[in-house]
């Protein structure tokens, strides 16, 4: 069950709320459909579109190669940009090097959003905690379902990995990278979590699903 209060655009909210609000006549109103959790001062979006935030870790697909880096599809309204300096530790002579040998179109990366300028220019980095993800497939879910797929202290994710022997990385942007034999099982489990994320006993249900076959 949801712990907190759901708000819709135009609904008055308490004064301490900081994000996704606007002022009118000295009062604060929500701009979005979202959840205000107890003792929290933000409205968490409850929607179907991923809007990037600095600090988010995302799965991305290389879309274009430029002279100074790569454009990456991160399932958001705009492509993100991975600059050379945030991708490689070595020096590269961009005039003599084919950048596709590092990251080619269609390849998958795990990256962190380090900067957003004017809602539009999104910079990502793979220097810390990032990586190029070899092989594997991408499964798409709703960004709002990501916390349930990871679970408390990553408990759900652990079960998914242990019971299927798959490598799984969940991006905040709703893209999930999976590599291993039982990809179909992981897919089934994710769909179950999406459907029943509001019900209790979900972890047991998922474990049961994965054990049967």
């Amino acid at each position, binding site marked *: 069950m949801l712990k907190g209060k759901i708000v819709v655009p*135009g609904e008055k909210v308490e004064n301490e709320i900081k994000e996704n609000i606007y002022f009118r006549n000295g009062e604060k109103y929500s701009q979005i459909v979202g959840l205000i959790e107890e003792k929290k001062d933000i409205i968490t979006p409850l929607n179907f579109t991923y809007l990037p935030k600095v600090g988010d870790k995302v799965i991305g697909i290389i879309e274009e190669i430029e002279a100074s880096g790569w454009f990456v599809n991160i399932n958001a309204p705009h492509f993100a940009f991975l600059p050379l300096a945030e991708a490689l530790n070595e020096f590269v002579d961009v005039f003599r090097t084919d950048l596709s040998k590092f990251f080619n179109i269609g390849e998958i990366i795990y990256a962190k959003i380090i900067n957003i300028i004017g809602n539009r220019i999104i910079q990502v980095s793979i220097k810390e905690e990032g990586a190029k993800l070899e092989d594997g497939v991408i499964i798409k879910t709703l960004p709002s379902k990501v916390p349930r797929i990871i679970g408390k202290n990553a408990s759900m994710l652990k079960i998914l990995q242990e019971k299927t022997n798959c490598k799984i990385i969940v991006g905040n942007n709703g893209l999930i990278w999976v590599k291993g034999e039982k990809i179909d099982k992981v897919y089934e489990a994710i769909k179950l979590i999406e459907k029943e*994320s509001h019900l209790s006993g979900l972890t047991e249900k998922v474990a049961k699903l994965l054990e049967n076959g």
Partner: protein
Amino acid sequence: MVELIKDGKRVDGRDFEELRKIKIEVNPIPNANGSALFSFGNTIAIAAVYGPRSLYPKFLQEKEETLVRVRYNMAPFSTETRKNPGIDRRSIEISKVIKNAIENSIFSEEYPRTVIDCYAEVLSGDGSTRVTSLNALSISLALAGIKMKDLIAACTAGRIGDKIIVDLNQLEDNYGDCDISFAMLLNTNEIVLLQLDGEIKKDEFLYALKVLKEKCKIIREEQERKIKEYFEKNA
């Protein structure tokens, strides 16, 4: 001539200022970023919002804000006699006024250089199709996570003789003396859609606006209730 009022009731048995039954389905189109079905009685519209998403070719992009595109369309089976498929002049005009309503309800500057595509299909038309479409789009935009000043509440009013009525059905639209399409953001007290066709005196018109505002409150509450109900079950 069609008799639109009999024994103090309207052709479908309603009181003058009574809305038809409102029905809302939330997220009927999983492919869209947000979608909703809205009906007033026999008028049914389904809407979907795709975006904000990248816009190409580049010259179409708005530097500081998003581009809103709207397509209002009536299905061939939605009318009494089959409507030729495709966009006619009426649909183009309605799409334009709906677009204006949406542009003035969202925080456009949050999504520079993107496009938000808004589609409304009238599945069954029994009057008031444009406001039904706009109500469906309001919910769709909210579900898509688009930042908005308020949910958009839309309704029609009209005049039959000396009576002001709301939520016109097809007969009242065709044979009434006046019809008004109206949408507003209650939170900011702003009218975002206003069209009037037919004849009406100033006092009657101002009274109709007052009734419309009251009815929009009910419509907005219903949108809010359904959105919350959906997320309580599905989030």
